[in-house]
């Protein structure tokens, strides 16, 4: 119990420290921090399903896109409302619609295992992306624009920095709570051996569905923030295969073994691509590729895994 309290205190101190950073940093670095929080948030959401149950989704960008478009359309309905209300509506629309879609497809799609689940999620993302660009409600190829919700008195990048930080903290708190709960142990049992878990009385279908809906819904809420930050979305910018891949890559680079893995991975990968490779734009992809291969071969349990291996010795 004491240990849990310590973790919560440490987390609160870290969040408070991170929240003060925008007062000292230049706008560019605030934006780097913002993209670290967003991609860490996405990675944690993805990890909520994959890390607990080993169901590797290849199409989480579906939820990002659904959340983004749901928020954009919902904001049309409350165009004249106050900023707080608008923000709440956007977040709830993202969370609700993405979570609803996840709930609708959970039962059929979670019957598939291994590579088949992976490919089916890819198909879901592709279908939704094509559907959004095919129907004019979603702006077609022109896309939709979103209002700027940052209050006048606050710098735009700092506002979204805090928003993303808050959501990341929320998502991590949920994931952490799951890992200490009955649900978390059930999900871990599913990861190790689904048939055995079922035989021992773990309600595998229900547990998997809960993890899937939470993961999808929270991704949708983050997708709403992602869209608000972009200010303008098209199918290509939010239904993007590379978004799905980033979640996977960040989680694996950081380490699948713990909740901190996805966050570390997102921080390292974003910092490397935004800061170190900023001048090497032409070879950016190649260096990222080499980095991914190197991490998989040299540090199979990710950066967090490397550290744990050292301390264990």
């Amino acid at each position, binding site marked *: 119990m004491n240990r849990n309290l310590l973790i919560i205190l440490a987390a609160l101190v870290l969040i408070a420290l991170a929240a003060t950073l925008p007062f000292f940093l230049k706008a560019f670095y605030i934006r780097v921090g913002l993209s670290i929080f967003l991609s860490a948030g996405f990675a944690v959401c993805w990890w909520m399903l994959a890390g607990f149950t080993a169901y590797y989704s290849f199409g989480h960008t579906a939820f990002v896109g659904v959340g983004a478009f749901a928020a954009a359309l919902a904001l049309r309905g409350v165009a004249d409302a106050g900023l707080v209300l608008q923000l709440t509506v956007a977040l709830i629309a993202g969370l609700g619609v993405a979570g609803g879609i996840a709930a609708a497809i959970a039962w059929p799609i979670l019957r598939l295992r291994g590579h088949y689940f992976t490919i089916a999620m890819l198909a879901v993302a592709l279908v939704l992306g094509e559907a959004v660009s095919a129907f004019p409600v979603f702006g077609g190829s022109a896309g939709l624009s979103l209002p700027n919700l940052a209050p006048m008195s606050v710098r735009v990048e700092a506002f979204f920095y805090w928003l993303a930080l808050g959501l990341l903290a929320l998502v991590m708190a949920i994931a952490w709570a799951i890992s200490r709960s009955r649900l978390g142990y059930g999900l871990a049992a599913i990861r190790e051996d689904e048939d055995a878990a079922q035989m021992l009385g773990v309600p595998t279908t229900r547990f998997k569905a809960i993890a899937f809906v939470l993961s999808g819904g929270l991704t949708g809420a983050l997708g709403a923030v992602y869209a608000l930050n972009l200010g303008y979305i098209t199918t290509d910018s939010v239904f993007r295969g590379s978004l799905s891949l980033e979640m996977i890559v960040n989680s694996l680079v950081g380490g699948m073994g713990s909740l901190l893995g996805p966050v570390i991975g997102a921080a390292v990968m974003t910092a490397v691509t935004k800061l170190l490779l900023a001048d090497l734009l032409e070879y950016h992809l190649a260096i990222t590729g080499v980095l*991914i291969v190197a991490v*998989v*071969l040299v540090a199979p349990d990710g950066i967090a895994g490397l550290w744990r291996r050292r301390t264990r010795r």
Partner: protein
Amino acid sequence: MTTLLQTLINGLLYGGILSIAAVGFSLIFGVMNVINLTHGIFVVGGAYGALIAWSVLGIDPLLSIPPLMLIAFAVGWILQRAVIQPAVERGNPVAALLVTFGFTLVALNLLTVFFSSSVRSISPSYSFINLRLGEVSFDLVRLIAFGCGLALIAILGSFMRFSRWGRIIRATALSELGARLCGVDARGVYAVTFAVGSAFAAASGVLIGMMLPFTPAEEVTWTVYAFIVVTLGGVGSLGGAMLGGVLLGLVSALTQTYLGGVFTNMVMFLILLGTLLLRPNGILGSAFKASR
């Protein structure tokens, strides 16, 4: 009636190309159980190889297929030995998938730097000839590509069925442990399988390059199409890849004619999803690699 006939013929020809573009992917997925994201890069790489052979050396694209297959075989072999096999042995199901993604990023970057991201095409002298049979017209290039695709599939089929190496590969796919107990070098088999898969991907790329314009970024499309074809037809069987390709080609042509171009991809992806949910092993899927 003529429209329908023309659509069906277009779909059939396109389907043949989809089939040949998927056999390499199917082989690697079926034998190694690895989702090979480099597939599209080998396809596009084949197209660019043929472009160099045609525009710089003046070699007809069809004649450049054998040497390009050899090169792709060598690259695939080295890639599998150096990077993919170590990742497979890590035991993590996505480790192998991730390294193929990493290699794809590197190759895509290099292709873009060398060839720029602009659209290229290969048009040998016979590429604009159009044959007519009554009311129905055929592009000669598509017909040639279809024929070459069938010939390549036949070659791969007889290699797998009748050659010693084909037998060894099939045995390893059925049971790695059993094959190793009989003295088979399983790692060597995987290297050859991956190399053969890559060679056929490159060959299909040459045929595609003759028919359609291409860019480096097109690789995603071909990887995804290979996914769909293989899942629809059934993993690891050549007949499955052919059936899946032809069905998909027909569906794509029919949607394009009767529903409009915006919906072709959506219908194709819906079919992929439907197949996965209703019959994950695909239409002709073999039972030995079940859906887990």
